[in-house]
């Protein structure tokens, strides 16, 4: 695909959204029977499943910590979730994302309640249309809650980016999808512990001024509320049924 002439025109992004508009979002809880907690989140065509196991015995032994649980996120993509087949097994990108996802949850989950154990959060991208790590983070957050693991707060994330119109003017936009990820001028993954507003995940590729970043962040903070409410709604629905 050639670089498009614009990513934004007449107030609309390539998929018709406004700058602060989210893609269609779906959250389903309890999608994996065997897991203690699980959730599937869709942001448009991006679809990610998360499942939680633990607190449980931790291997290998040398990772055991006497005062708290080790929480590890394991992010991976199905081989057919992307255009060109991804070789099975985690590569460098997956290792890095697993690390930042793990770190995003460690200050929020009450790990000191489960010393000497492990909590595993599996995040599988079923279909990728950008924002997969943040979609996965939102799913993981719901799955942890569904597993009944105590957390200080729900963790909620959005992406935002910098896109251009046909005059070369640039704009900040939330919930980046594939063409914006590929051709836009910046791509930010951003997540907070909702109750406290602490930033637990922040990554950026791109080229922005401080002001642009702050403008995007403001849009993202607003959008986050929408995502958070969807997370809560999905969780409530499952507890009402159960």
């Amino acid at each position: 695909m050639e670089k498009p002439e614009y990513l934004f025109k007449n107030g609309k992004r390539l998929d018709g959204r406004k700058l602060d508009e989210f893609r269609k979002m779906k959250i389903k809880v309890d999608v994996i029977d065997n897991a203690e907690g699980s959730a599937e989140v869709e942001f448009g065509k991006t679809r990610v499943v998360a499942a939680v196991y633990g607190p449980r015995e931790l291997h290998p032994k040398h990772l055991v910590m006497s005062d708290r649980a080790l929480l590890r996120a394991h992010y991976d993509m199905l081989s057919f979730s992307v255009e060109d087949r991804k070789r099975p097994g985690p590569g460098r990108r997956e290792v890095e994302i697993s690390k930042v996802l793990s770190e995003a949850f460690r200050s929020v989950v009450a790990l000191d309640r489960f010393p000497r154990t492990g909590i595993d959060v599996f995040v599988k991208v079923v279909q990728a249309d950008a924002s997969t790590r943040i979609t996965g983070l939102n799913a993981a957050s719901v799955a942890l809650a569904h597993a009944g693991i105590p957390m200080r707060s729900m963790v909620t994330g959005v992406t935002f980016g910098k896109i251009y119109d046909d005059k070369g003017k640039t704009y900040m936009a939330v919930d980046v999808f594939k063409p914006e990820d590929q051709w836009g001028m910046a791509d930010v993954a951003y997540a907070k512990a909702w109750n406290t507003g602490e930033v637990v995940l922040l990554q950026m590729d791109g080229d922005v001024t401080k002001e642009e970043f702050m403008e995007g962040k403001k849009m993202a903070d607003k959008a986050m509320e929408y995502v958070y409410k969807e997370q809560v709604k999905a969780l409530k629905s499952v507890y009402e049924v159960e």
Partner: protein
Amino acid sequence: MSNNILRKNIIDLLKGGQRIDGRGLDDFRKISIQTGVVEKAEGSALVNIGSTQVIVGVKMDVGEPFPDTPGEGVLMTGAELTAMSNEEFERGPPGEDAIEIARVIDRTIRESKVVPVEKLGLDDGKVWMVFVDMYTMNADGNLIDAGTLGAMAALMTARMPKYEDGKVIREPGKALPVTGKAVAATFAGINGHILVDPEEREESVMDARLTIGMRDGKIVALQKGGNGSFTDEQIEGMFDRALAHEKKLLKHLK
């Protein structure tokens, strides 16, 4: 529940002709198949057999043929028993269970010749590579039959990318040629009782397992698994039962 007690309970039930989830010895769990579940894949299917759920996708690429089969496409089948799908499964490269499952699914698809690889050559000497990858989403036994159904459904609904001037263009083109339908039926032997479509608790106490891959009333693949054994009579009985299941399984493939 320890495995010994579980085994005793299951055997006690089997003596009365019953299974732990109430099924008869020759009953499959409820099967459902949904195709086209991953747009980015050339073909895909989500298969449920009871609470076992697997997702299978087909990706195609262009590559070199094997030296001994010039002009023939290459079919590769992989399986990941994701740690997400069962507490017992571990992360890391495929272990012997995942490798066996992938190879048995591969065997049924390949030997049934439902994908005419000889039609997957390209003008420039290159050939289509067809990657069929299965991932377990929730593993509750009988992954081989689920994976075989998924592979078949994904292949039957796959649309090939285009290939122009030595480049793969990822737009859905014509359908992948598929010339028939293959399915597999797996049986577990537990203390002399033979039951189809074992769920995980049954697999965890079974003596042995036999998978029978079929096409058009013929047997295209066999795989005995497990530490135990079968008698000659049991094997012949499983053949008859499997061939009866073939028709029922095929109904799920459109």
